[in-house]
């Protein structure tokens, strides 16, 4: 082996033999990017966009160029979740070029992107699939956000509200159903809790009253004072005795004070339990409301009607806003969020990870920065094309570094689809410590078909056809939000049906001649705790109609519930009042009596110390501060 190696010509330091494998390797990489990369990227975009939107998103073609750093996407189709057989919108082409200067720094900066040929409500070749709502406790940011909203809206939302009204109209007796409900009343539980507390208090106060100083103790002190010689024959002895008398009086005053404090504390306790017993009424009202809900006894309050009819729509819009806000806050963090991350970095770095130092950026880019995107579309031969204009500016992954908020403004009309006055303005300001977003969106007119308000087996109510207008104004700062949503359905063609003839009659009368349906919803609070106020003329009309027919029946059902709750808590309340009476009559009375006697004894002790009228010892005692 050694001989043959030595016979060979010595090889130079360059591995010439590796040239061909290297070329093959580079060729394979080129072939992958040429033949497969664009396809994989297209599928990746479709997958991610579908997950974010919640319904199928298709991309016809993606073309990228490594050398020019360009990206071109054609035929973007976004399925309408409500009507999967059509697209919500379709974009003919999106194209942009990234700056090589930024790419060499490992960043993506786009000077200008173009969005061309926007069309709306285009029919799909095949219906797009709509993703089912994520099951509860699905991990992930979007699922968690969605869950948080549903947890709050569903607490006030009865999807079979009109069905329940139909039940009442049919004359179902709620008391019969009540027997099936095996739940403890909140009032009952609270009464038991109070009972235990009061019994404990009573025992505690009995013990304390027995331990408090009595009048006899003070009288004993008075005897001590009387035993002292305050005649003033010996000045030195007089001074000593006066000091002793003063100490004894102070001791007696302390004992009286103890009794006074105890009495005021007992008065406080009695007052507190008095209030707690009175508060039981509030618990009782809550119990009645809960039972009403469990028994599905609807309220005929117009606000409740509005809430139940439009909650589904509001919930959907809230979900959409929350979803996009969460995405924006995750990928475009505000300064406050990055500061938090930095403070976490102050912890010792994990082994092998080290610490990454950041130097001042003199010429740098955020990780992603789309400087400007222009949307431009003209009405063309296509039946679905619209006139759309507007743009997006400063979309970046580091708003605080850039110092400029992301602004979006899109406006347009799709005359052939009867969509007019589309206007969407959004400002995402994550440049400061707090994340702020403002949204202003409106559509002056658009067609609505087959909108459902109730789709239960008992009652069906919806609008077959109408021209709608909608607007949304919202501002969000960190966790707090304020959203104002409104909608209007002009010349609605209602379609309704009900098993119960009464309900059908009421619906017919209420909806007859209703020229428009208006709705306004205001959502305030934070994402984890918000209030929803909804008002609608449809709710008021239906409420009025049902009130005429069902007020008596519902009133009767509610009265039965109230009496049931009151009957159940009556004995507990009585027992509580007795216990409270025992507390004020027993230890309360004893302490009050004790206090009177102690004060009387104290006066006696003070009298003995001052020794009658105006003598010299008395003057001296005054000098000591009596």
């Amino acid at each position, binding site marked *: *082996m*050694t001989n*043959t*190696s*030595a016979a060979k010509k*010595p*090889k*130079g*330091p*360059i*591995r010439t*033999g*590796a040239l061909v494998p*290297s070329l093959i390797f580079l060729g394979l990489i080129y072939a992958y990017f040429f033949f497969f990369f664009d396809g994989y990227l297209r599928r990746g975009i479709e997958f991610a966009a579908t997950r974010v939107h919640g319904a199928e998103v298709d991309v016809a073609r993606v073309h990228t160029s490594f050398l020019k750093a360009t990206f071109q996407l054609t035929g973007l189709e976004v399925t309408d979740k409500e009507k999967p057989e059509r697209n919500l919108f379709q974009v003919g082409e999106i194209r942009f070029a990234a700056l090589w*200067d930024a790419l*060499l*720094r*490992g960043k993506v900066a786009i000077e200008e992107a173009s969005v061309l040929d926007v069309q709306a409500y285009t029919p799909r070749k095949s219906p797009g699939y709509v993703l089912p709502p994520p099951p509860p406790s699905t991990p992930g940011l979007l699922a968690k956000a969605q869950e948080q909203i549903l947890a709050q809206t569903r607490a006030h939302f009865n999807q079979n509200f009109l069905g329940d009204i139909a039940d009442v109209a049919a004359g179902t007796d709620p008391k019969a159903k009540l027997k099936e409900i095996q739940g403890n009343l909140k009032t009952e539980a609270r009464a038991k809790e109070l009972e235990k507390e009061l019994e404990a208090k009573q025992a505690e106060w009995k013990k304390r009253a027995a331990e408090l100083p009595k009048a006899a103790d003070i009288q004993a002190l008075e005897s001590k004072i009387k035993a002292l010689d305050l005649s003033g024959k010996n000045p030195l002895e007089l001074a000593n005795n006066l000091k002793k008398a003063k100490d004894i009086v102070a001791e007696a005053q302390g004992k009286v004070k103890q009794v006074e404090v105890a009495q005021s504390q007992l008065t406080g306790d009695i007052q507190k339990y008095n209030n707690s017993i009175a508060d039981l009424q509030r618990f009782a009202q809550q119990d009645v409301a809960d039972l009403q809900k469990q028994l599905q006894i609807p309220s005929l309050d117009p606000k409740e009607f509005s809430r139940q009819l439009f909650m589904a729509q509001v919930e959907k819009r809230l979900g959409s806003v929350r979803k996009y806000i969460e995405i924006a806050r995750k990928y475009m963090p505000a300064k406050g969020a990055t500061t938090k991350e930095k403070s976490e970095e102050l912890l010792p*770095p994990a*082994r*092998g*990870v*080290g*610490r*990454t*130092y*950041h*130097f*001042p*950026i*003199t*010429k*740098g880019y955020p990780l992603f920065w789309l400087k400007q995107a222009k949307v431009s579309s003209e009405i063309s031969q296509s039946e679905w094309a619209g006139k759309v204009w507007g743009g997006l500016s400063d979309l970046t992954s580091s708003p605080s570094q850039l110092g400029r908020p992301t602004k979006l403004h899109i406006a347009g009309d799709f005359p052939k689809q009867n969509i007019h006055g589309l206007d969407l303005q959004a400002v995402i300001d994550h440049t400061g410590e707090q994340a702020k977003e403002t949204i202003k969106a409106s559509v002056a007119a658009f067609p609505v078909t087959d909108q459902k308000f109730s789709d239960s087996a008992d009652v069906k109510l919806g609008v077959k056809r109408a021209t709608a207008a909608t607007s949304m104004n919202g501002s969000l700062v960190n966790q707090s939000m304020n959203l104002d949503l409104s909608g209007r359905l002009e010349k609605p063609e209602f379609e309704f049906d009900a098993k119960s003839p009464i309900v059908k009659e009421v619906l017919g009368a209420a909806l007859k001649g209703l020229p428009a349906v208006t709705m306004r919803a205001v959502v305030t609070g934070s994402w984890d705790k918000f209030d929803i106020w909804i008002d609608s003329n449809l709710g008021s009309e239906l409420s009025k109609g049902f009130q005429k027919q069902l007020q008596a029946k519902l009133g009767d059902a509610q009265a039965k519930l109230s009496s049931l709750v009151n009957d159940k808590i009556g004995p507990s309340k009585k027992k509580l009042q007795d216990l409270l009476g025992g507390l004020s009559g027993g230890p309360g009375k004893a302490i009050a009596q004790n206090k009177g006697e102690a004060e009387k004894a104290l006066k006696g002790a003070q009298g003995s110390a001052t020794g009658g009228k105006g003598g010299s010892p008395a003057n001296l005692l005054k000098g000591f501060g009596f």
Partner: protein
Amino acid sequence: MTLLFKQLFGLLKLLNSETGENQIAAGIAAGFVLGMTPAFSLQTLLIFLCLFVFRIQIGMAFLACFFFKFVAWVLDPLFHAVGSSILELGALQGIFTRLYNMPLVPLTRFNNSVVMGSGVVAILLSPVIYLWGKSLVIKYRVTVVARFKETKIWKAFRATSLYNWYTTYDQHFGS
């Protein structure tokens, strides 16, 4: 995997021959630098390029990299301390700021304390590792290979037809 085994067999052959100590030593040095670098970065790519272009024993480089990865894991706190002290040097802040804002350079992740520390240590020690590796190979050949060749087993094996067949094959098709 086949390529890796080929490289390892090539290493064994080269190690037991009388030439190629420079290739093996360069492989050890390259593996040392690779092993010390904590993550994939631009300098890793540069080392790989060197492995492909120059006649460096790739099998040895991978073996050395595997070995030095464990050493580096133990030495990470030291690298972090060295890197931190370099990155915090007041006199170098200007140049670091400039490098940080240059194209390509940030891709080396030089601003990470462990990358900087291990990089500096690896570059400074790589010539030493190269010379040490070379002397180790020579010593191995003198003490282990030469003695082995004098053993009866080896002499008996050399007399077999299998060995003759292999030497003929290697003469015609070996690298």
